[in-house]
Structures are given as structure tokens and as C-alpha cells.
């Protein structure tokens, strides 16, 4: 038989890959240069609006003890909230997908809840858990993660090609088998895109939650108190740390996605 086989693109030479990244790196460098020189020297942007890049880096180095301690506290809150919120969402999605009448009854409320600005509850969670408890911030992060993960996972579990289910039925498959072998694997792309969104939301929830209470060493408090003391470089350094943590968190989830979905055409075709 003559067969045309489309295989994934062979991994390209390193040189070609580096060349692909050149434009992005140039833009990054230009951005930093504009921050360092163009904004303060040409446009006259004041220090309290945006300190020079070199000042922020200076604060990053000088205050690294304070920043790292704060980062660690806030990261724990964010990851804790992410794990609790996403975990609960996945479990609830499985239950709702298994017993569809429940799912159909609750779905409109879930979608509505997804649109609630949950961050507005942050001051109130302090009343629930006590002003100094990290749990208020974990809760905010968890609730922020919960709805998008729930809605997407449920969509992934239920939007399976009907013939896939008919096929399983022809094998006299139990409902458990259908979930294990068809619904769950085919929902994974949905789940991971939701988890990537959730990782960002968890970090936002934790940092904003810091503003309303909890440990005085948390990263959000560092931003807040540095602003109050007019130490803008330190605030910006803390924001920079929060951003780096957010990106690292997102990248970690994306990495797990690539590994888990290595079978997926969109992942595999990118080449390894």
C-alpha cells in the first residue's frame, strides 16, 4: 500500500530557533531601554509615577530579604488557593457530568457566578477567617479559580463526539469506563486552558487579598507600605517579583500541559 504519512516536524536546528526569538528579544531590550532612559529623560516621567528601571533593580537587590519573604508567603497563598479551588472544581465537574440533571440545573448559576467580581469579597473574607489568617487570601484565590475551571471542565467532559460514546456502548462499557477512557482524556485540553487562566487568577487573588489584611510580611503589604513611605522603587520591585511569580506559575502549568498532552496534535506538531 502506498501511504502518505504526515509526521511531526523534525526538531529544527538550534540556530533557526534562536533566530526566531531574535525579534522578541529586541522588543524586550527596547522596552527596558525606554523604561530606563526615554520615559524619565525625554518624557520627564516623575519618580513616583514610574522609577527608572535601574532604581527598581537596585531596590530588588537591596530589599531582597523582604521581597523574597513576602513572595514566599504570597506564593503559598496563591498555590494553595489554586490547588483547592481547581481541585474542588474538577471534582464538582465530574459529579455534574456524571449526573446530568444536576449539571443542567446548576449550570446557569455557575456561568453567572463566573461573572461575579469575586475580588469584591476580599474585605469580607477577613471577617470570616480573622484579620491575620492566610486563609482569607487562600479562599479568595480558590474561589477565583473555581468557576472558570468548573465551567471549562464540565464543557470538556460533556462535549464528546456522540459516536465515541456509541462505540463505548457497543463494548458494553460501564459509565466509569466511559469517563476513564473517553470523557476525562478528551476533556484535558479544556481543563488545562482553564488551569492556565486559574494560575493567573490565583496570583491576582493572593496579591489583592494581601491588601486587606493577613501577614504583614506578605508581598501585597510590601507594595502597599512602600507606597505609603514613598519608596516607589521598592513597590515596583515587589510588583516585578509578583509578575515574575505569576509568569513562572503560568509557565509551570503550561509545561505540565505540554507533558500531559504530548499526544495532542496541537502539542505534538510543534515538534519537540
Amino acid at each position, binding site marked *: *500500500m502506498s*501511504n*502518505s*504519512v*504526515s*509526521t*511531526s516536524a523534525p526538531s529544527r536546528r538550534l540556530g533557526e530557533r534562536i533566530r526566531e526569538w531574535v525579534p522578541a528579544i529586541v522588543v524586550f531590550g527596547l522596552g527596558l531601554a525606554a523604561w530606563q532612559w526615554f520615559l524619565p529623560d525625554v518624557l520627564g516621567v516623575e519618580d513616583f509615577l514610574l522609577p527608572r528601571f535601574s532604581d527598581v533593580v537596585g531596590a530588588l537587590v537591596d530589599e531582597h530579604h523582604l521581597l523574597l519573604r513576602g513572595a514566599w508567603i504570597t506564593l503559598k497563598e496563591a498555590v494553595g488557593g489554586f490547588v483547592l479551588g481547581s481541585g474542588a472544581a474538577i471534582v464538582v465537574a465530574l459529579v455534574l457530568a456524571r449526573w446530568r440533571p444536576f449539571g443542567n440545573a446548576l449550570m446557569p448559576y455557575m456561568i453567572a457566578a463566573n461573572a461575579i467580581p469575586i475580588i469584591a469579597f476580599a474585605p469580607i473574607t477577613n471577617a470570616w477567617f480573622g484579620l491575620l489568617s492566610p486563609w482569607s487570601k487562600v479562599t479568595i484565590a480558590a474561589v477565583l479559580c473555581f468557576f472558570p475551571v468548573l465551567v471549562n471542565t464540565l464543557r470538556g467532559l460533556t462535549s464528546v*463526539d456522540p*459516536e*465515541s460514546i*456509541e*462505540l463505548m*456502548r*457497543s*463494548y*458494553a*462499557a460501564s459509565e466509569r*469506563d466511559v469517563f476513564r*477512557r*473517553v470523557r476525562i*482524556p*478528551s476533556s*484535558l485540553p479544556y481543563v488545562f486552558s482553564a488551569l492556565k487562566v486559574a494560575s493567573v487568577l490565583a496570583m491576582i487573588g493572593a496579591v489583592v487579598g494581601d491588601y486587606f489584611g493577613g501577614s504583614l510580611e506578605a508581598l501585597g503589604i510590601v507594595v502597599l507600605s512602600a507606597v505609603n513611605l514613598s519608596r516607589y522603587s521598592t513597590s515596583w520591585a515587589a510588583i516585578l517579583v509578583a509578575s515574575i511569580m505569576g509568569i513562572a506559575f503560568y509557565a509551570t502549568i503550561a509545561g505540565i500541559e505540554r507533558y500531559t498532552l504530548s*499526544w*495532542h*496534535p496541537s502539542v*505534538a506538531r510543534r515538534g519537540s
Partner: protein
Amino acid sequence: MSADGSSVVSITGLSKVFGKGGVKALQEIDLEVERGEFVSLIGPSGCGKSTLLRIVGDIVEPTEGDVIVNGKPARKARLDRDYGIVFQAPVLYDWRTVAKNIALPLEMLGWDRARRAERVRDMLELVELTGFEKHHPWQLSGGMQQRVSIARALSFSPALLLMDEPFGALDEMTRERLNLELLRIWAETGSTVIFVTHSISEAVFLSTRVVVMSPRPGRVAGVVHVDLSQPRTAATREEPRFFELVTEVRESLHATGADEVEETLAAEDEIA
């Protein structure tokens, strides 16, 4: 009705109505399929041939009438995994390799790893895909995917093979090649096949018997016994007898008023 045990499928007084007082898809169908037969169901779209196939496989429930498969009710036959099914779409799971797709029904039957591996090897040989076991479905051409689907359906040696326009989405060349391949597999495995198609020449070429169905409601309008000699080859398509039989099936189809109905259906679809 034959009760000598040679009948693989026995359908009596079968009707199917979709929805309450809704569309009558099938009316008063009686059909016997003997062991080792290759029976095609042919008819215009809307004649319920796919529905009939799904009722035999207990994927859709009949409104009236009985379906006996291998001497037991269709439901029992499904639970005993008495048939393998092939759809128009290959319905392969992207997260499984070719080998693991073929092994899926065997996993459900609780076969151990070694036994599964051996059967997968045999099946790949049968459909001439040896060497592709580690590929993922999307790396194969449409024809190859459909061969994997056939291998999967045959992997657990079901007595009956149900095929719903399996080659309908393929180009003419691939289709003719797979027709020959299917006949070889049919001869080698000695299975019984019910094959839904809307191609007259395909039905005549493959079958021992062609069942012509009329549309809305679907009824058996005629049966054409195909007395072409076995094994059939590419040359069979050029025999005068082949053309006579094609003409016979075509006339039988036209006698059902399929043309007008097709037009009516199209008009109805436009209105709806």
C-alpha cells in the same frame, strides 16, 4: 423465521418512531441475515438505514418489533460483545496510539498485556498497517485511520460486523482498494457483515445480498441476490453480470420513488 441457529440477525416487525408522534423512521422491517453473509443496506438519505444498523447494535431502541442477534435479544448480544462496529468517521482516540486504539475493546474484556499485544500484532497485519503501532491517529491518512477502526472492530473476533458507510468519506481510489481489503478480511475471518452504504456499485461489489430500502418511512423495498463469483477482484467490476446487478439495484431504488423523496426532503430542509 429460521430457528436452526444459522441466523445471526433476525429482525421481525421492526418499527421506529422518533419523538412522541414524530417522524416514522422505520416501518415493519423483517430481515434475516445468515452466518457468513455480507448484507448491504442501501437507500437514499432519510431511509433509516443507519438507524436500522444502530437498532441491531442496541445503540438505538426500536419502538416496536424484535431484534434477535446470535439467538438472543440485541441488548444481551451487545452486553456479550457479539458485534464490532465501524462508523463513517474512524472515531479513534487521539490520546491513544494506533496499537492502543486497537487494544481498547480488549482492555474492556480484561485481556492481559501479552495477549493484547499479540492480537494487536495480528490485527495490524490483517489490515496491513504493521509498523504504525506507535503512531497517533492524526498522523495517518483517512484510509489508514479507517483501517485501524476496522482492526479495532475485529480485534475481539465478534460474530457480527456492523459498518455504517465506513468508506463514505474517502476518495474513490482509496474506497475501491479498501473494498477489496474488506472482502479479503471477510473471507479470512469468516465474519458476518451488515454494511450501510449509498453507493450502488459498492453494495453490489461487496455483498452477497443487497437490501434496498425506501425512504420515509424506511421499508424493505426489495432484495437483490448478488451471484457474482467469489473471491471478487478488481476485474469483477468489469463483468457484464456486475452491470446487470447494478442496474437491478438502481431500478429497485428508483421504484421506491427515492428521487422525488430526495427532492421533497431537500425542500423540507430548506423550509426548516
